[in-house]
């Protein structure tokens, strides 16, 4: 398959041109739910990265054994296994964070970003390309989560990671850390990213 992208292309595509959140609009449930602070956002990004990289490599190793009508079962089985491992590890070593994230860690199983990468890349290409694809996509997902969380936490609490950054006179916009803030921030950043890429490629809005 000569027309398949190379490892470097896969890696770079995931960061911005095919950013999971800003370009593909995948995995929006955790994007909206856990971005009220930097810490939960980073924990979620790392868990998704772990699951995505492991699942992509395993699926890529099995790609020649997959039967078309059974492939989704195998994707789901693999993803569920790694999600359960991530969930248990968090409960053992980051107990409070695991309680804060609650059901969102087990819900990574249904994050369509991961099944999408298994389908698009891992089931067709070699483990090395699949791994760099997963790395790129996870970085893109992580950047999106962190950018949204930074805006929300800064405007909502006046600080980042719990440290006060804005002057004490800043009236904390509590709505930013509540669910509506997630939609507002995602919408504005989405518009900004698309405006920027359109301008760069010479298109007009």
């Amino acid at each position, binding site marked *: 398959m000569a027309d398949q992208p190379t490892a470097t292309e896969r890696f770079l595509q995931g960061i911005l041109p095919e950013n999971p959140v800003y370009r593909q609009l995948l995995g929006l449930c955790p994007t909206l739910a856990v971005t009220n602070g930097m810490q939960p956002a980073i924990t979620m990004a790392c868990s998704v990265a772990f699951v995505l990289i492991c699942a992509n490599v395993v699926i890529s190793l*099995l790609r020649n054994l997959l*039967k078309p009508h*059974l492939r989704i079962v*195998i994707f789901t*089985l*693999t993803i569920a296994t790694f999600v359960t*491992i991530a969930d*248990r590890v968090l*409960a053992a070593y980051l107990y409070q964070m695991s309680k804060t994230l609650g059901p969102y860690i087990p819900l990574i199983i249904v994050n369509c970003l991961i099944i999408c990468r298994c389908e698009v890349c891992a089931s067709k290409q070699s483990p090395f390309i699949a791994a760099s694809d997963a790395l790129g996509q996870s970085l893109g997902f992580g950047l999106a989560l962190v950018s949204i969380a930074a805006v929300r936490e800064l405007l909502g609490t006046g600080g980042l990671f719990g440290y006060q950054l804005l002057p004490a006179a800043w009236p904390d916009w509590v709505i930013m850390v509540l669910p509506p803030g997630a939609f507002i921030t995602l919408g504005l950043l989405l518009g900004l990213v698309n405006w920027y890429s359109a301008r760069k490629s010479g298109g007009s809005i």
Partner: protein
Amino acid sequence: MNAIQRTNLGQAWLVLLLALLFGMSLAGVQAALGPKIEENKLKETLEKVPVVILGQQAADELNAKGETLVITPNTVAVEKGPVTKYYTLYKADFKDGTLAGWVVKTKGQGYADKIELLVGMDADAAKVTGLFILDQKETPGLGNKIVEDAWRAQYSNKETTTPFKVVKLATGGVNEIDAISGATISSKAVTKFVNQAVSDLKPRVAQFKDSDGKGVQ
């Protein structure tokens, strides 16, 4: 060869093999991390016992004075017809030996998964002093409101003579609990566990009054 491939097993062997392998590796993970997770839960339980009995403010004051409650765990078997239900009952004493109260750990089926909670009672089990949710996977935004302070506060300092009752739009009646809108099942489940724990253990606490304070601190 084609004949083998056409059989169900020929089609599904990879799924079965992976399920077996993944299942085994998850069992391994659970065996390795399970004790650590239980330890975290126990630690949290022991931290929450004073809060559930005395309330957050008094528990903080006690902490500020550098004192802790002496906590003794007991296992209580309550026979209910053919089944026996086991509760963990924590007895909490002040440093001078006076009884502070009791905390019952109980769990049951919520809307999504098991809900595990602590119910605090005063020394005579005449009042429910508070409630803490240890573990839940209820629907985010609806059922998971059971963990919020404001909702749990409805159970604090209520007489145990009347069972709690979930109503929509509580009007201030005795032991009425306001149902969370969109999460009546979660609200009712928690209330049921509290009522069960109280009715099962209220008659039993007296016999544990003399269990000595050599338990975990």
